[in-house]
């Protein structure tokens, strides 16, 4: 019954619908909603009506809110190298109702990070940070009890491991102890070379996906289109899904986390693929390739 309420809320889309479903005093409910935690830091009201994109100088695309050009939090002009990404960002801004929920605008956040580079990192630092996840890769850590989970891990994670070993000609084992598998240096070098071939924007997205899925193997499988986003998220949360199947799902925790992870991973994957698609065409226009 809760699910049908959620679905109806999505369709109707405004906070007023809660009036219909709450059996308690409806009037007070609405007033509570309108002043709940709306501080200047966390939420801003939607201050524009139309969102459009325009092509700026050098072939980059800008996003316009009403008449004003969108800027990054660092004050720079918000530009993206291709139209698809601009359309997607514009849709994110367009999808906001009454208040702006920045935590739901994942693509915008990624673009802002790529443009501003607030931590002032270069490509090599990002690659090193990403490769740190190889040693503690999710799919390499196996458990030896209960047997149903062991089977599940073997059936689901082994194929991905084999795939990546073939695709990149590397060796990654899996391990049952707390220290994890011994990853040979040649593997790390191969990955480093491969990551080097991505431009700065794609690398920003890829590092984001890796940190969300907690696995380099799954992220590369996703970006190389071997897995879909849903599959990658499922494999990343394999143990949790197993426990859910055994003990039941708690909507406000499990589903919430799963949808958030899916949204972020999808945004990251989209970001990587869109940024690297255009790299051969627009390389001159991007900051650090």
């Amino acid at each position, binding site marked *: 019954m*809760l699910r049908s*309420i*959620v679905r109806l*809320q*999505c*369709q109707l*889309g405004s*906070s007023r619908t809660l009036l219909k479903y709450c059996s*308690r*005093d409806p009037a*007070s*409910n609405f*007033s*509570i*909603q309108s*002043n*709940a*935690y709306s501080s200047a830091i966390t939420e801003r009201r939607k201050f524009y009506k139309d*969102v*459009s*994109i325009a092509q700026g100088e050098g072939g980059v695309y800008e996003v316009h809110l009403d008449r004003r050009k969108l800027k990054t939090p660092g004050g720079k002009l918000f530009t993206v190298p291709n*139209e*698809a990404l601009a*359309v*997607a960002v*514009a*849709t994110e801004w*367009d*999808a906001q109702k009454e208040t702006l*929920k920045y935590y*739901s605008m*994942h*693509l915008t956040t990624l673009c802002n990070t790529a443009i501003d580079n607030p931590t002032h990192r270069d490509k090599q630092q990002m690659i090193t940070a990403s490769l740190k996840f190889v040693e503690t890769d999710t799919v390499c850590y196996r458990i030896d009890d209960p047997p149903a989970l062991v089977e599940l891990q073997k059936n689901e994670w082994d194929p991905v491991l084999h795939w990546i070993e073939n695709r990149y000609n590397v060796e990654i084992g899996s391990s049952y102890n707390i220290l994890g598998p011994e990853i040979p240096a040649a593997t790390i070098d191969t990955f480093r070379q491969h990551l080097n071939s991505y431009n700065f924007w794609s690398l920003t997205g890829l590092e984001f996906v890796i940190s969300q899925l907690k696995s380099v193997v799954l992220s590369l499988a996703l970006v190389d*289109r*071997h*897995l*879909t*986003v*849903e*599959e990658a998220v499922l494999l990343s949360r394999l143990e949790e899904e197993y426990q859910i199947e055994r003990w039941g799902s708690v*909507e*406000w925790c499990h*589903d*919430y986390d799963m*949808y*958030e992870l*899916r*949204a972020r991973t*999808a*945004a990251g*994957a*989209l970001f990587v*693929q*869109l940024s690297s698609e255009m790299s051969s065409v627009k390389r001159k226009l991007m900051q650090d390739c």
Partner: protein
Amino acid sequence: MSGLSPPLRVFRGLIKELRDIHGTTYKNTLAYNYVIDQFRKNGVTGERQCRARQEALHLSQAYLCLLRSTREHLALHKLYHGKGDRGLAEMASLVGLRLPSQPGGKGWEE
């Protein structure tokens, strides 16, 4: 590539999500026109094994996942985490009590 849905399903899902976001004017939006354009260019016929088509399909499925999961996440957030503090009268009514009304005002408020 094993989990790719048929293109028609992805297409219909995308249209539904965009309609959900924009309401009745969804046909004039950037995203809608872009999606229609891309699907038309890549030819949703399902016959040839074309690499560019597979890539475009994966991309569109990722975008569908993004739109769908953002919507579900926001809905769950609103349902479970968005309430904020209840007022005093609300809290009292939770346990079935009502605040007393004092016509002269409470003594300590002056």
